[in-house]
């Protein structure tokens, strides 16, 4: 069973770069943006589809400050993402664990997992709307659908692939079922489960956009749709860049949480927790 990737070593962007590299990046970025601006002004780029950076900046000001209309849609989208992600990943982790602990179910589930894996989940979105109608429930259902799978499959494989050696150790110590679960299976599966959660949260954002593209009532997705229809590409770009920033914050936020939970996968995490436990021990033993 394939484990979704996402467990690749934590990457650090920007903040830990040496100052000179950072400066070089800034210069390259400004040159690219400058070329875009000049190209647009000189008529090399069609300003209708490729608005000038200066216009995009002005749109940011417009939709965030002057009109302030983006906030409502931003909250709508983030609310959906949050609700769908929490519901979908609870369902995914829960079912994954349940299936993982049932040898009988486990044995027969593989074909269904393969079918599920091969089917683009988003294709089911129109059916969900047909079944649940327009509005929040069907949107949340779509997000749940797209972010269910990674936590499900990762939890399942995390639970199933518990180290044989450690299991034998626990058996030799006469461990009970609950002790094996709490002290071995869950901690060992945690990093894999977290990797699934990370993929799920990214998928949740895409799922929310698709749901909003279809329903066109509110949210950043429908806002992008409306601005594009009105040929207000600068504002559409401002919305897209807003999503870039959100995506980045989600990535960093999940990375931060991941480092807290699966601390033993990084030197810094082990140093932090090791020091804390040493202090607690010395506190207790004088």
């Amino acid at each position: 069973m394939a484990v979704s990737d996402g467990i690749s070593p934590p990457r650090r962007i920007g903040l830990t770069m040496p100052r000179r590299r950072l400066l070089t990046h800034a210069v390259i970025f400004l040159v690219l943006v400058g070329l875009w601006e000049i190209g647009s002004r000189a008529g090399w780029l069609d300003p209708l589809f490729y608005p000038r950076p200066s216009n995009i900046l002005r749109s940011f000001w417009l939709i965030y400050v002057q009109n302030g209309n983006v906030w409502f849609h931003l909250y709508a989208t983030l609310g959906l993402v949050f609700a769908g992600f929490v519901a979908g990943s609870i369902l995914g982790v829960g079912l994954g664990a349940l299936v993982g602990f049932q040898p009988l179910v486990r044995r027969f589930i593989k074909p269904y997992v393969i079918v599920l894996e091969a089917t683009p989940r988003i294709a089911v979105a129109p059916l969900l709307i047909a079944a649940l109608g327009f509005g929040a429930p069907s949107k949340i259902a779509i997000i749940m659908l797209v972010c269910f799978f990674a936590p499900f499959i990762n939890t399942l494989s995390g639970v199933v692939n518990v180290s044989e050696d450690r299991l034998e150790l626990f058996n030799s110590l006469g461990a009970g079922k609950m002790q094996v679960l709490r002290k071995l299976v869950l901690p060992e599966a945690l990093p894999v489960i977290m990797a699934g959660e990370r993929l799920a949260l990214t998928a949740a954002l895409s799922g929310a956009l698709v749901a909003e593209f279809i329903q066109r009532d509110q949210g950043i997705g429908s806002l992008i749709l409306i601005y594009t229809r009105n040929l207000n590409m600068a504002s559409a770009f401002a919305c897209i860049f807003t999503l870039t920033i959100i995506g980045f914050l989600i990535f960093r936020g999940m990375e931060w949480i991941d480092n807290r939970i699966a601390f033993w996968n990084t030197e810094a995490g082990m140093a932090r927790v090791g020091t804390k436990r040493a202090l607690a021990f010395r506190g207790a033993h004088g």
Partner: protein
Amino acid sequence: MDGTGDAQQMSNSVLGARSLGKTFANGSVVALEGATFDIRPGSFVSLVGPSGCGKSTLLRLIAGLIERTSGQVSVHGTDVSGPRTDVAMMFQKATLLDWRTAIENVLLPTEMARSVTKDDQKHAAELLKLVGLEEFLFAFPSQLSGGMQQRVALARLLQTGADVLLLDEPFGALDEFTRERLNVELMRIVGEVKATTLFVTHNIAEAIFLADQVFVMTPRPGRIAATIDVPFERPRPLSLQTSPEFNTLVAEVRDVLGDDH
């Protein structure tokens, strides 16, 4: 097999077996056949032999990790029917929990039985000192070398409080120098805690150097082919291994193992 006499003797030995056997795959693979022995309290016994001779199977039968298909095995005069608290096992891999510090790993066996007290923590810290890791109580496994990880596993083995210790090639994955040093320390430590020790290895010299008694095992079917007493005084210096008496014993073991080895 004469019932009463054997039963009497078994109840006096710390660890005994009568015609102990184990087959796999519905009897088509005989992993161990007719193992009969009594082990004196506090003695160190090595099991040596090539792969497939049943030495790991024998250890797992005593640990209660697998069920026997024939014969008897008992510890402290009671039948082995599953894992028990007076028997503990150490594996070739350290098998530590990556998310626990060294001392938390050592405390694992205690946690299985009851909630950990301050005294338990103190005891675990002392055991880590005994294995030479007093500086690394709060290090995580991945911060330790392979040899140090096995030291943690050894401390965890002792934390169980078991007086029958089963070691399945515990230092087999380590380099020659580390293994030799750990072997010497192992002899010192099990002597200190006065445990009865069964040590599996496929290294003849190592088996003799460590043990009071060597069980030489041969494969197809796995069985104990000979029991050889090792008379050397303790503590034993590493240079013992180059003495003529030592090499006579090596030759004796080799003789039992035949051309296969």
